[in-house]
């Protein structure tokens, strides 16, 4: 299972977790990082649809019991710190910055359906 963090659509800083039952495999063996995985859509009823390759997955949106925080580690000298503390010390400082708080996740645990033709478009 691989957790993929993706920014939530629409809202600026809302993030979500996409939880998949299965692996996302790259055929070419490349790192998945920065790769285009698939399309995430919402139906009118609000159920998320994830299309990966020729698979289509339907899932559901679940709010997390414990929200996660997305931290960003920063190394370096913060200008404020530098000013306050010793400049030497500040170089080695790591900081974590909260980028977002994740309150929802999208679970796709149903067996994916293969996409054969252009039906996709009509959906």
């Amino acid at each position, binding site marked *: 299972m691989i957790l993929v963090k993706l920014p939530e659509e629409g809202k600026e800083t809302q993030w979500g977790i996409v939880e998949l039952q299965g*692996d996302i495999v790259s055929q070419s063996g490349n790192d998945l990082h920065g790769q285009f995985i698939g399309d995430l859509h919402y139906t009118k009823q609000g159920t998320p649809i994830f299309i990966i390759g020729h698979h289509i997955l339907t899932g559901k949106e679940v709010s997390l019991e414990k929200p996660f925080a997305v931290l960003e580690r920063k190394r370096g000298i913060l200008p404020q710190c530098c000013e306050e503390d010793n400049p030497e010390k500040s170089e080695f400082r790591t900081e974590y910055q909260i980028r977002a708080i994740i309150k929802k996740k999208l679970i796709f645990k149903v067996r*994916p359906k293969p996409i054969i033709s252009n039906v996709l478009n009509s959906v």
Partner: protein
Amino acid sequence: MDEDFPNPEEEFEMMYADELAMLQEMEEGLPNEPVVRKPAPPTVRRSLDFCGSSSTQITDVISSTPANSGVEKLSAASPPSRKRTIDDIFGDIDDIELEEAAEGHHLSGKSSKRSCKQTVVDPTFFLDEDPGPESSHGKEMELIDRINDLRKKAFMECQQGHISSPTSINSKPFDHSRLKASSSITKGVPKWPFVSVTSELGDRVYVRLRTEEYMDEQCDKVSHKRGQSGLLRSSFSSLKDEALKILEEKQESIIAAQVAELETLETSESASSKTHDGNNNLWVVKYKPTSYAELLSEENVNRTLLHWLKLWDKVVFNKERKTHVKAVKEDKKNQRFQKKPFGQVLTDELDEHGRPQFKMVLLCGPPGLGKTTLAHMVAKLAGYNVVEVNASDDRTPEAFHTQLQAATQMKSVMGKEPRPNCLVLDEIDGAPAVSIETLIKFVSGKNVGKGKGKKKDAGPGILKRPVICICNDPYVPALRSLRQQAFVLHFPPTASERLASRLMTISRKQGIKTDLGAMLALCEKSQNDIRSCLSLLHYFKSQNRSVRLSDIHQSNVGQKDIQRGLFSVWQEVFQIQRSKGGFTQAAANAVARSKANSSNQTPEMKSGDSAIAARIQRVLNTVQSHGDYNRLAQGVFENYPNMRLRDSSLNGIVKGLDWFSSVDLLNTEILSSQNYILMPYMSYAFAVWHILYAGLAWPKINYPNASYEASVKEGHTKQIIGELVKGMSPSVRVNCNETQLIMEILPLLLDVIVPNFRPVSLQLYSSQEKKDFCSVVSTMIDYNLTYVQERTPEGTYVCNLDPNIEEIVYFGESKPPRTLSYGTKQLLSREIEMEKMRRFEMAFTSAQSVQTPSSIPQDKSPPKNAPREEAPGKSKEKVSPTNVPNHLRKLKAKPVLKELQTKDFFGRIVDITLSPSTVKANSEAELKGDIWFHFKEGYNNAVRKTIKISELL
């Protein structure tokens, strides 16, 4: 004198005395005349005394006498009678005078009556009346004088207000000599004017006089207002007449008894009284068995019936069932009814309602064996009240049903000891079948309905009383269903010895001189028919003869029309009876018969010896007694070929066949012209056949069913032909009728429609074959033939002609010389269907085009095509274009629309969808090339691992 009925004179006196009594009573009622009262009572009483002994009319009179007359205290009766007389007769008029007048007339009326009878007995009349010592003529005179005085007084009193005439009349009769005069009064002229005068007063007086005139000839109904009728219930004259009649009868009966006694003495008969009784009731009734032990029928049957009846005890007599059932069961164990392996066994098992398994018993046997007697006797013995329904009763289904219900569900409440009913249906074989259906429904159907309810013992629906049916022949078709439902008891003929001994007892009782041999002969002659034996004995008795063997042989009383079975009649015809013990009897019969119908003698009889004559006679008797010549002749006709024929030249056959044809002719004539005068001649054919074909061996006779089979076959054939003709095309139908079809056309037609076809597909046929094929199709259509697929019992499929004319054309075993293969037949049938449709279509469209020629010009083209296509026979291919136009249009319309849609879709989407799809395809290709989703089934197997911030740092 007192005890015996009085002679007319005395009787009349009694009447007179009553009048007197009445008179006295009336006077008594009046307060102003006390004088008369005292002398009157003695006479009254005396008269009453000897009235009391005599007939009822006279007692009526007594009841009207006053209570104070002393002897009989009938006070209750007297007041109303007096009242009535006063009210009715006298009304509102002054009492005394009128009353007296009434009495006067009364008396005069009586006296006149009397005078008619016996000329002048008036003075003695009173003397006769008074037997006692104190009473005397003088006293009587005195009384009358007093009455006269009284009347005169009254007359004086009422003279002021009333007319003198009635009183004068009254006074006159009351003279002593009046009685004599009264006869002259009626005739005398002076009286008559008075009558007319009195009429002014009212009807009463007038009527009274008239009654005097008519008294002798008219009954009491003439008028209600007469004094006499008011006092007595019926008029005096009628009473007198009746009394006379009774007297006469008595005398006659006495004389008759004396005469009878004399006669019986003369004939030395045992008892005179018995003959008297014997004349009244039949011996059959008289010597009916009175107890179970006296029953003549076979013990086995009796017992079984009784047993069956006892099985009902549980339902019918609820209380006693335990003991009874026990008794019955013990009985059963002894007899082992259940163990018997026969078809119908009477079992003890009761159904859920506690009834025996068989709700009915069917007693069957020849007449006169005592079936009815047995049923009655046993039912009575078992404690039932027998309700009998026989042929003389109304047996329509409705009446039958009500009777059934009444008998089985009601119970007599009134009788001394109310008993449950037991229904005995006598002679049920004569009842209409519908009624029997009703019975069966009643017995079985209803109790099924009740069974659902599961109400035990309750409910009026179920049959809770035994039903005994009695019939002579259980194999009557109407009884078929009944036979299955009922317990059938066959009544074996009574043992001759038993019957003969009983007959001997009876004849001993009756004082008939006879011997056992004669009785046995009688039994044999009557075929153990008890009833006919008894009636024959009775007949002999009435002739006061001793009964000897010869008498029995000579008499033909004991013979009755016993319906014999068809087979026994045929057997009689085909078998020469060996002369056994009963031959003498047969000969005697023959002699007796030949006297009766000597004119009927056949030539053979004249020529032949007595044996042949007897044989012929016998056959004739049997055949005539059966009467169904038609059926009998059929039987003979079908069975004679199986007989052993003696002449090799077959002359006998020829002769016999001549007779068959003559019988046939006779029968036809009888049936067609209703000329039944020919009927007697039919029986003689049987005699001839008997002579020709009969043998000593036991003939094996089959029931004649050829005619039945033939008629069935004929019906079937007719049906087929009818079907065929119905669907034939008019142009063909015009030229043939049924016989032509059967005799000429169909046999050939069967060959015509079977040409030589190669078993290949239609397309491969040569042009000649196609032509043949086409002609077959059109022929078959013309004759409304087709092939129909049928499944044989073996499971294979066969194509048969639809109106299966093969059945008509080929007889029995014969087979058609060649047939088409299954495939060809199917091909043909399909083609026929097609062709029919095509023709129909053609007719239809042409009709349409005729109707609206201008409106549909396009339609014209397909019909034109159709005939052309028909002719060459390339039908298969052309079927579609011609056949389908309507169809196709529709079919096309749909696809076209779809196509349009798709086209539209295509057309539109080509721009819109095609591009994305292609784009997508591209992207998909890219995606496929790289990333895909690998789904893992099962649960989420994430391993959680605590991570500390420090680790991250």
